[in-house]
């Protein structure tokens, strides 16, 4: 007999619970090519090379096994070799493939009731996760629209994609139970890779400050104002996190001069500018967490008949 050196191989694959039959099929195919499962996992599986045997594989889901010995015996007495269990309750079994094996010998679930019981155990969990994704999607989309922040909107879209993928997964199981074809379900691996990559990029952008989000905007034009010495309140805005913010300001007062003031809730001035017209780009504003207010005071030269004030302000993260 030829002694073959065993070579190990690790694959990183991810299957959704409703894709467990796909995983069984992939394992069968690998075994045909001489790659035998050593340890199965949710994110990582180990294989070894042995071209002299061929196995068929079955996955079981049962996170609550009271008597592991009784469990394993039930499988071993029918020629199923236990490989390993995952942390979350999936169990891998294999059986030596024999030419002309009966279909029923290749399955661990041989009636609908027991098969549905097994599927039901993970379907309940998937159902809860799907509902959570739905709630997150709605919450992020609403927050995104209200705050006009692109990052929150993108996160909302990610949760919409996850919700749709999981929802379609559940629908496909039910369709097959009713004797229909599974229908289209986005494959989970690329969906997960895409969502995690997007989240990673957003987090990185926020962390390194590449991303500029506008936290406050004021844009208005006023005509025919009376001479006013009492400050005219522009608006309020809230800073969630202490840090350096960027002020872009463009104002002009035809026929007079104006003062722009930004102050915090206690009345301390954090920014002040007095001019006929002025343009400020990228002024660094050091702001603490809290609420701020903008004020404008306008003065007009005597005899000026037409007055027009234009303000365009933007505060960025």
């Amino acid at each position, binding site marked *: 007999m030829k002694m073959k050196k065993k070579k190990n191989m690790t694959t990183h694959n991810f299957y959704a619970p409703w894709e467990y039959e796909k995983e069984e099929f992939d394992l069968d195919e690998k075994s045909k090519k001489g790659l035998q499962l050593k340890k199965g996992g949710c994110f990582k599986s180990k294989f070894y090379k042995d071209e002299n045997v061929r196995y068929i594989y079955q996955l079981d889901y049962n996170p609550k096994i009271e008597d592991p010995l009784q469990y394993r015996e*039930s*499988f071993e*007495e029918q020629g199923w070799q236990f490989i390993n269990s995952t942390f979350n309750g999936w169990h891998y079994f294999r059986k030596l493939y024999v030419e002309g094996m009966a279909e029923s010998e290749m*399955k*661990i679930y041989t009636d609908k009731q027991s098969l549905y*019981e*097994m599927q039901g155990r993970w379907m309940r969990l998937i159902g809860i996760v799907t509902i959570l994704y739905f709630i997150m999607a709605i919450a992020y989309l609403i927050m995104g629209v209200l705050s006009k922040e692109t990052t929150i909107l993108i996160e909302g879209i990610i949760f919409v994609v996850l919700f749709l993928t999981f929802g379609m997964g559940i629908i496909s199981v039910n369709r097959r139970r009713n004797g229909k074809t599974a229908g289209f379900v986005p494959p989970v691996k690329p969906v997960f890779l895409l969502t995690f990559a997007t989240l990673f990029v957003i987090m990185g952008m926020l962390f390194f400050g590449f991303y500029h989000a506008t936290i406050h905007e004021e844009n208005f034009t006023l005509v025919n104002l009376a001479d006013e010495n009492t400050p005219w309140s522009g608006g309020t805005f809230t800073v969630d996190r202490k840090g350096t913010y960027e002020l872009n300001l463009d104002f002009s007062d035809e026929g007079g001069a104006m003062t722009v003031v930004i102050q915090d809730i206690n009345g301390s001035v954090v920014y002040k500018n007095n001019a006929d017209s002025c343009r400020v780009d990228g002024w660094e504003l050091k702001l603490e967490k809290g609420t701020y207010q903008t004020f404008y005071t306008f003065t007009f030269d005597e005899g000026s008949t037409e007055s027009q004030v234009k303000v365009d302000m933007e505060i960025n993260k």
Partner: protein
Amino acid sequence: MSVKINMSVKNEPLTESYFYILLCLYQNPSHGYKIMQDTERLSENTVTIGSGTMYGATVNMLKKGWITETSSNNPEDKRKRLYELTSSGKEILEEEIERLKRLIRGSEIILKGDDK
């Protein structure tokens, strides 16, 4: 997801797997593999009980109290896990057999054309 069955209502018909497991235990205690083989023989090879199905069914029936675990007096079988029918399991099986007999009796009346 499991539906609680109101005990005052008639028992649900048993699945073929449940029925054959109880049937195989009617005369003597038996173990999983023997139950599987007997089921194939008795059903004329139309019913097989896979490992997952067998495990689920025995765990459920142990919980319901239809069967219990027992050990064998036979030294050859000492290591094997034996299942024994309880009185409530026996009752369930007998009720089911009565129900099936009724089905057959009714069917035969129709098939023979004896219905008035």
